[in-house]
C-alpha cells in the first residue's frame, strides 16, 4: 500500500490532508538543510529526489488520466499544468511566457501548497524551497521521451512578487535504434 493511501485512509484514498503534506515536505527540506552545507547542494538534492519521484509518478498519472502522447510541446505544457498539477497538488499554474521557438515556457503559481507555512531564514537566501517540483517534472517528462531543464526563476519565498518556474525543452529522445546484436 502506498504512503498516500495510508495517510488518506479516511474517505477518498486520493486525498491527503494538505497541512500534513506541507509539514512532511517541510521536515524533509529541514533535514536537507541540516545535512548539506550550501543552498546549491540542497537544491540539487531536492531536484534529484523529485526526479526519482517523477519517473514513477508519470506512470500513475498516465494510468489515471489516460492521456495519449502529446503532439507537441505546447500540448505537453498544458497537460502538465492543467492535469498533472491538478491531479497531484490540486492547483493549476498558468502557462505563459512562451519563447519564440516554442521550447521555453513558464509556469506561474498563484499558490503553492508546499510552502503554506514557510518563511526562508535569512542565512538561506538561495534555497529554492520547492525545487523538488522541478525534479518531478524533469523525471516525468524524461519518461515520455522529452529531456527538459527546469528551475524556479522567481519565488515569493525569496521576496519576488510571483512564483515562476521556467521549463526548457532540450531534446526529444528518439525511440531506440534496433539493437546491434539483432540478427
Amino acid at each position, binding site marked *: 500500500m*502506498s504512503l498516500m493511501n495510508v495517510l488518506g485512509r479516511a474517505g477518498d484514498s486520493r486525498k491527503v490532508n494538505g497541512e500534513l503534506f506541507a509539514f512532511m515536505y517541510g521536515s524533509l527540506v529541514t533535514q536537507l538543510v541540516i545535512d548539506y552545507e550550501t543552498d546549491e547542494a540542497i537544491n540539487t538534492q531536492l531536484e534529484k529526489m523529485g526526479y526519482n519521484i517523477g*519517473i*514513477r509518478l*508519470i*506512470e*500513475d498519472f*498516465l*494510468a*489515471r488520466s*489516460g*492521456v*495519449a*502522447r502529446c*503532439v507537441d510541446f505546447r500540448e505537453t505544457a498544458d497537460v502538465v499544468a492543467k492535469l498533472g498539477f491538478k491531479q497531484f497538488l490540486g492547483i493549476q499554474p498558468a502557462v505563459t511566457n512562451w519563447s519564440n521557438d516554442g521550447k521555453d515556457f513558464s509556469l506561474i503559481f498563484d499558490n503553492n501548497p508546499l510552502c503554506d507555512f514557510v518563511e526562508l531564514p535569512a542565512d538561506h537566501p538561495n534555497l529554492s524551497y520547492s525545487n523538488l517540483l522541478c525534479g518531478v517534472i524533469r523525471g516525468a517528462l524524461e*519518461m*515520455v*521521451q522529452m529531456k527538459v531543464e527546469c528551475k524556479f526563476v522567481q519565488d515569493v519565498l525569496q521576496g519576488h512578487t510571483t512564483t515562476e518556474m521556467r521549463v526548457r525543452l532540450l531534446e526529444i529522445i528518439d*525511440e*531506440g*535504434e*534496433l*539493437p546491434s*546484436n*539483432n540478427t
Partner: protein
Amino acid sequence: MGDCIYYKQWNRTKDAAMSQDEEFKLMYGMLYSIKSFAKRLSPQPGKEALRFFKTNQYKLHFYEAPTGLKLILITSADAGDMDSTLRSLYSQIYVEYAVKNPKYTPSSEITSELFAAKLDQFIRSQAIF
C-alpha cells in the same frame, strides 16, 4: 531498450524451437519493424498505433504506454479486442504493483510475487481465458 521485464505463459501448447532469449530478441525485432512500417505508412504521422495482428492460429495483441512500456499478449485467433484489457493491465497491475513498489527499480525485471499473483488473477478473470 528492448529488455523483457516480465514473461509468463498460460496454456501454451507448443514450445518455441528456440531459447527464450532468442525468442525475446525476435519479438523485439519484429515489433520494431512492424512499428516503423506502420509509422511510414500512416496517413497521419504520430497518430498510428499497432494494436494487434492475427494469423490463422493465434493473435498477438500489443499496447504501448507513452512511457514506452510495451505489453504483448498472445491469444488464440478467435479472441476479440483486447485493447481495453491491456490498458487495465497497465493501470491496475503494472502501475499499482510494480511502479508503486518502492523496491522496484523502473525498467528492471519484475520479481515481485505480489505482482505475479495479481497478474495471474487478472488474466484468469478475463472472459477469454
